[in-house]
């Protein structure tokens, strides 16, 4: 059981009236042939889809906040905006401190490079310097537990090994704000335990965590505070139990149709 409390501290993430519009394309003229075809068929083949319709919230240092909502509600879009992947269409976003995004583990691994080579490449992609990576290599290796596989190309890894390496690199960066998108279920039970231990350690050291999860018991357990988004609108922002209950209500409300968005492709 966790309770909602406002922890005094610096602002880490601040959204003010953030709008994210995607151009949903039905048939975008991707090629010359299609472009020609479109010259003759003069109708717009897109409509604008608002994944976020003016979302405002502030997350302070040391908070662990979950974002819940149905598929296509805009959860991942929020994370990607915090990570800097998307530049929002309108509104103001302020983020302070280094952001570490576990949006997809092992994004940027090259299949032909070995685990060791990928640690360096991935670390650089995530914003570390080569020296910082080298000084943390041993910890990453210890955490990922890949044994002799570390010097084989990652295309030969099992999916669990791949995820373990990705998790090890991404969390070893030790960012001020850690973003996690549905990545709590990594590897086997033993490894999952190590992962949650690492996340607990983060929280204890006063780091900020923003996570997206459908696993409501984890959310209740980990988070002080939950944001509920629905169709791009922030419906509720409050203590975990209260918001999760509201979300469950929403989930079981059959009268409500939710449009699914391709925002998190």
């Amino acid at each position, binding site marked *: 059981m966790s309770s909602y409390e406002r922890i005094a501290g610096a602002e880490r993430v601040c959204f003010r009236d953030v709008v994210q519009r*995607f*151009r949903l394309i039905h048939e975008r003229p*991707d*090629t*010359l042939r299609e*472009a020609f075809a479109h010259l003759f068929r003069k109708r717009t083949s897109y409509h604008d889809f608002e994944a976020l319709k003016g979302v405002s919230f502030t997350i302070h240092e040391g908070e662990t906040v979950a974002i819940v909502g149905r598929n296509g509600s805009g959860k991942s879009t929020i994370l*990607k905006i915090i*990570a*800097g*992947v*998307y*530049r929002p269409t309108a509104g103001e976003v302020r983020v302070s401190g280094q*952001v570490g*995004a576990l*949006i*997809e583990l092992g*994004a*940027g691994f*090259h299949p*032909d*490079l070995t685990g060791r*080579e990928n640690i*360096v*490449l991935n670390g*650089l*992609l*995530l914003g570390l*310097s*080569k020296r910082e990576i080298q000084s943390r290599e041993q910890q990453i290796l210890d955490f990922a537990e890949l044994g002799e596989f570390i010097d084989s190309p990652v295309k030969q890894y099992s999916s669990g090994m791949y995820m373990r390496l990705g998790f090890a690199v991404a969390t070893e960066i030790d960012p001020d704000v850690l973003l996690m998108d549905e990545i709590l279920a990594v590897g086997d039970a033993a490894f999952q335990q190590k992962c949650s231990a690492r996340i607990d350690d983060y929280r204890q050291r006063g780091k900020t965590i923003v996570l997206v999860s459908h696993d409501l018991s984890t959310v209740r357990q980990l988070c002080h505070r939950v944001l509920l988004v629905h169709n791009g609108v922030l419906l509720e922002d409050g203590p975990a139990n209260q918001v999760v209950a509201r979300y469950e209500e929403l989930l079981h409300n059959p009268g409500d149709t939710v449009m699914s968005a391709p925002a998190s*492709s």
Partner: protein
Amino acid sequence: MGQLIREILKNRELIWALALKELQVRYKRSALGFLWALLNPLLMMVILTMVFSTVMRVPVHDYPIFLISTLLPWTFFSQSLAYSVESIVSNGDLLKKVYVAKSVFPLAAIVSNLINFLLSMVPLVLLLVVFRFPFYRTWFYLVIPFASLFLFTLGCGFFFAMVNVFFRDMAHILQIVLQAWFYFCPIIYSLDFVPARYRPLFRLNPLAYPLNGFRLAIYYGQLPSLASMAMSLLVGIVALAVGYRLFQRSQDSLVFYV
């Protein structure tokens, strides 16, 4: 431009690592590995020499050297573009998940070809030794055509990488354009062969200036006119300024289209 320099400095380790990865992946599991970087231009030179010197009898002494002095820089240019045009699109999945300065991908593509280009200077030197061809002092001057070519390539690389995101035909169009451009450049011939009345047309080719600089320094042992040097540098700087500006202007929307 200041922005570009800052991005390069900030991401230099990443750019270098990506460039090395590119080479590593390109040569991995091939028996000759890095030797291909040396063999490729030599074999190309042998083919073109057979066609143009032996069969068509282009009246040039030491044709292989005449040819390779511009063939190597051309290969750098065309390969760099072929790699950079795909660089953003092929890293699209990554761009959607991690924030990275977009410019690192075209830059890495070009740096990896730059390494190849520098390696390919080894067979050039060997060739000069084998042909007992003199090393002119004008080699020192190569810095200028080299810098011009590099800047021009960067500018084009940024431009094509960006356009290809919005318009995927670009990669295919570029292939044809590069083929035509090859014949339009003074590589297998020199501008003196071109009938005088067409020469102004050939001078419109921005690549002609740096390529000619390479040939003058290596093959003729001469320096180009100051005007020609200035022109080649200017072309490079303008290309980079324009190419990067266009790239920068759309870099925030690239992620929505990859």
